[in-house]
């Protein structure tokens, strides 16, 4: 019942926004901006172009709103477009020519600061490694393993089957493990993400 009400609300908002009503567009933007930004961030990591990409994603959302039929929630639909935006960005971006320097930041003495620095370094290495694997595998890994979404959910966002997502995650893990063999920091961090996908 609640789902039906939410679907009707999503559809009504999407129709008004697609018709060009700026207040509806603004409502949609405010409601979905965190969702869109989160999806982009998970796939791309910290990125200086995230601001532009968020804007691009919303532009794509508003241009495609006419095709929203309420088959999924508006949030899920926006995540799919954010995923496509990230995908297109990775595709057009030149791959990094050299590996990021695997030099650790100097570790601070107090425990909290130390942990922040370690996490930052581990994250940097993880996304550097993700930069070097196939895009679909990267997206599947980022959303399923890093973000902790279920396979079914990621299948819906990426418009794929559950089997396809599972296979991509498996391949991504293999690729990353190969890179982690030469990188203890990455290996240690990846070990945190081991475990069965839901």
């Amino acid at each position, binding site marked *: 019942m609640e789902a039906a009400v939410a679907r009707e609300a999503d559809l009504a908002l999407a*129709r008004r926004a*697609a*018709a*060009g*009503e*700026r*207040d509806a*567009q*603004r409502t949609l*933007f405010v409601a979905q*901006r965190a969702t869109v*930004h*989160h999806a982009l*961030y*998970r796939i791309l*990591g*910290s990125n200086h172009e*995230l*601001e532009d990409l*968020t*804007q691009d994603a*919303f*532009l794509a959302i*508003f*241009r495609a*709103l*006419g*095709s929203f039929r309420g088959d999924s929630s508006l949030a899920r639909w926006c995540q799919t477009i954010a995923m496509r935006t990230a995908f297109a960005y990775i595709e057009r971006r030149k791959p990094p020519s050299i590996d990021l320097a695997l030099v650790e930041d100097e570790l601070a003495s107090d425990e909290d600061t*130390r*942990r922040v620095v*370690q*996490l930052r370094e*581990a*994250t940097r290495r*993880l996304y550097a490694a993700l930069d070097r694997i196939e895009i679909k595998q990267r997206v599947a890994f980022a959303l399923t393993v*890093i*973000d*902790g979404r279920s396979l079914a959910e990621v299948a819906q966002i990426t*418009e794929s089957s559950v089997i396809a997502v599972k296979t991509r995650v498996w391949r991504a893990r293999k690729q990353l493990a190969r890179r982690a063999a030469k990188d*203890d*920091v990455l290996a*240690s*961090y990846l070990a*945190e*993400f081991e475990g069965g996908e839901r």
Partner: protein
Amino acid sequence: MNPKLGPPAVEPLSDVTWARIERDLWSRLDTAPVPSPAPRSWRPWIVGGLATAVAIVLVILARSRGDTETVQVAQETVPTRMVSGAGPSALTYGDAHITLEPESALVMTQDPITTTAILERGSAWFSITHRKQPFVVMAGDAMVRVVGTRFRVTRMADHARVEVERGIVEVRFRGTEYRLVAGQHWSSGETTAVIEPPPVIEPPLVIKLPPVIDPPTKPATKPLPPTPLQDPRATFERLSALEATDPSAAIAGYVTLANGSDRWAELALYAAGRIATDRRDARARSLLDTYLRRFPRGANADDARELLGHLKGLP
């Protein structure tokens, strides 16, 4: 390394960044509005889109000014933002000569067909000449222009004003088009008041403007079959507006538009298939099949496949 670092935290964007994203987003939407699937309803906020709707195509005639700094800007496909400080700035963008008055900001974008200027604030003078008839005589410091136009656009918050010094300018506002010739001005606050102009002595200049969005008070009209003379985008938008009131006519119009070979043909063919699917029209499968044969990697190819999948599941 410590045993558990946890997943990387998503760094939030600041309020200032969100405000900037939102502002730029509306600006881009105003420049290239979303094709609307239903007739638009009146909202006072349309005024907000006005100033950027005065986005105008430029072609050039350069004219130097001694009291301004001149900057050459190469033709680009990425947006270029120009901001003036306490004094005016003059610059050349492609074929256009622009004088930005103090405390003004302008964003220029360009695609292979259209150059668009978005005035963010303040005023700017634009000097343009017809690309095919460039003819300038220089005599010392004097420059003689043969064909062209020169006009000024001012934006103050949601209000815009256009003044034409020479040539012809078309202004489109809330679905209504105003044609200004030398000596005329137009303001969003007095949309019907245009000063009578002196006689026009210059040939008309074709200026490409953003697509027409019919005002909400107009009843929906059946589209004419598109011809090569009609703007496919405008036709597409009229058909989009027609979908809600007369879907059969919309399908017919889309099918006609789909006979072309540009991206509007692609969008039209998919739209026809989509409406036909919604209406359980017998042509739906054929339209979607045709779409996928013609545009297997088209923007709506995934959606078309999904719709076909639904259709195949139907009795």
